[in-house]
């Protein structure tokens, strides 16, 4: 705790009046402890009910593919894979798009007014509630995926990735909507990194005769790379934790499939769907899955924050 002792005469003045403990400081300390305690409390309330499942299944929980409530056998592998794969596909789609938008916003291709409209729209995408994305996915994206997925499975069905039948509630649908949902995260953090690139680097590149895009690819993006990587990792964390929209769109199937056009499941969707009517070992297994999800997203977010901190330091030295 901080000591607020002055020096010399001020100290003696305080010494004469009776010194009381700083009650306000105690109050702020209690508030800070409460924040930390709340997290511990949440973790404790996940681990305690999960304990029977942890003891019974151990790490085999993450390698077993069967989630069968009737036989009381639970394996989270399909959901673990579903969470990872849906987030990775979303990133695959959103990363190039997000970086291009970040470049568009930080370069002067079009007047500032136009760029600010685009920036506003991308930020609005972050403000739309998850459940509205889910509704939009059901009404707009699912019919599209059914139609184009039908063509895909007709012509490319020999590839395991596009083998039919094309269902609307599928990995592809969920990934497409997730991509739009994480786009604002990627764009905002990448844009900050690109804007932070010192103008002297750009001027130097132009001075030796590089075109604008040679400058972008060989100077701006390499310099801003740590920030773009951090944006990607944080977006990955967001996509993994996303619950409502994915639960509405992915089909929540406990089966593993190579095809992007067939239903899959995620850890978050599993919890949202089964928690209400679960009891006994099933409840415990769900808590185990929740713990896995928390640890996973925590790990990814910590990695992202760490890279972001390093990214801020990386460009700080260049003038």
């Amino acid at each position, binding site marked *: 705790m901080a000591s607020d002792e002055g020096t010399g005469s001020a100290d003696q003045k305080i010494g004469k009046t009776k010194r009381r403990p700083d009650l306000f400081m105690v109050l702020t300390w209690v*508030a800070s402890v409460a*924040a930390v305690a709340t997290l511990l409390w949440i973790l404790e309330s996940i681990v305690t009910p999960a304990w029977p499942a942890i003891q019974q299944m151990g790490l085999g929980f993450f390698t077993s593919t069967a989630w069968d409530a009737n036989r009381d056998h639970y394996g989270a592998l399909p959901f673990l894979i579903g969470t990872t794969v849906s987030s990775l596909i979303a990133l695959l789609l959103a990363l190039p798009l997000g970086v291009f938008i970040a470049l568009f916003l930080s370069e002067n291709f079009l007047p500032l007014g136009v760029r600010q409209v685009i920036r506003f729209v991308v930020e609005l995408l972050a403000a739309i509630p998850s459940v509205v994305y889910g509704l939009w996915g059901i009404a707009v994206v699912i019919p599209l995926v059914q139609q184009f997925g039908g063509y895909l499975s007709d012509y490319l069905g020999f590839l395991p990735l596009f083998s039919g039948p094309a269902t609307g509630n599928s990995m592809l649908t969920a990934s497409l909507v997730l991509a739009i949902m994480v786009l604002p995260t990627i764009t905002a953090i990448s844009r900050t990194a690109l804007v932070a690139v010192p*103008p002297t680097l750009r001027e130097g590149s132009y001075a030796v005769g590089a075109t604008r895009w040679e400058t972008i690819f060989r100077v701006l993006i390499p310099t801003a790379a740590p920030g773009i990587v951090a944006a990607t990792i944080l977006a990955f964390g967001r996509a993994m934790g996303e619950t409502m929209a994915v639960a509405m769109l992915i089909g929540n199937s406990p089966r593993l499939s190579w095809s992007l056009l067939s239903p899959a499941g995620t850890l978050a969707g599993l919890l949202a769907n089964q928690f209400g009517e679960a009891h006994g070992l099933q409840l415990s297994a769900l808590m185990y899955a929740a713990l896995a999800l928390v640890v996973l997203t925590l790990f990814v977010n910590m990695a992202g924050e760490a890279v972001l901190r390093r990214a801020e330091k990386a460009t700080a030295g260049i003038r």
Partner: protein
Amino acid sequence: MTTATSSIGFTARSLKAVDGNSRVRILRNNFWTFLCVTLSFLTLIPLFSIVFLLLQKGIPLLKPSVFTQLPPAPGLTGGGFGNAIQGTAVMVGLALLFSTPLGILSAIYLNEYSPKSRLANAVRFVQSF
């Protein structure tokens, strides 16, 4: 940032005046510019699509009673979702009531009293969580 090029790309007239290698570089430059601007405008589509969907389905049913009345019994029409509006407002209000004082007090501790203590680091960690 001042550049020798126009803001979108090089003009056709300047293309004739340069040698082959430079022409390829300029064309490549313009291709990326085109791709970048096009993709940026494509992001407008999802948002417009969402707004359009909500308006298309919502406007015909929009009347003041929707926000004040309770949901109708099964099989009946009319009514509204006033209960949900009130519930959202009360829930958000209560959440703010609990979290605002705690958050501000904790922020004061972090910034004013001991920014570098172990507790302060723990609180920052919890925040990022």
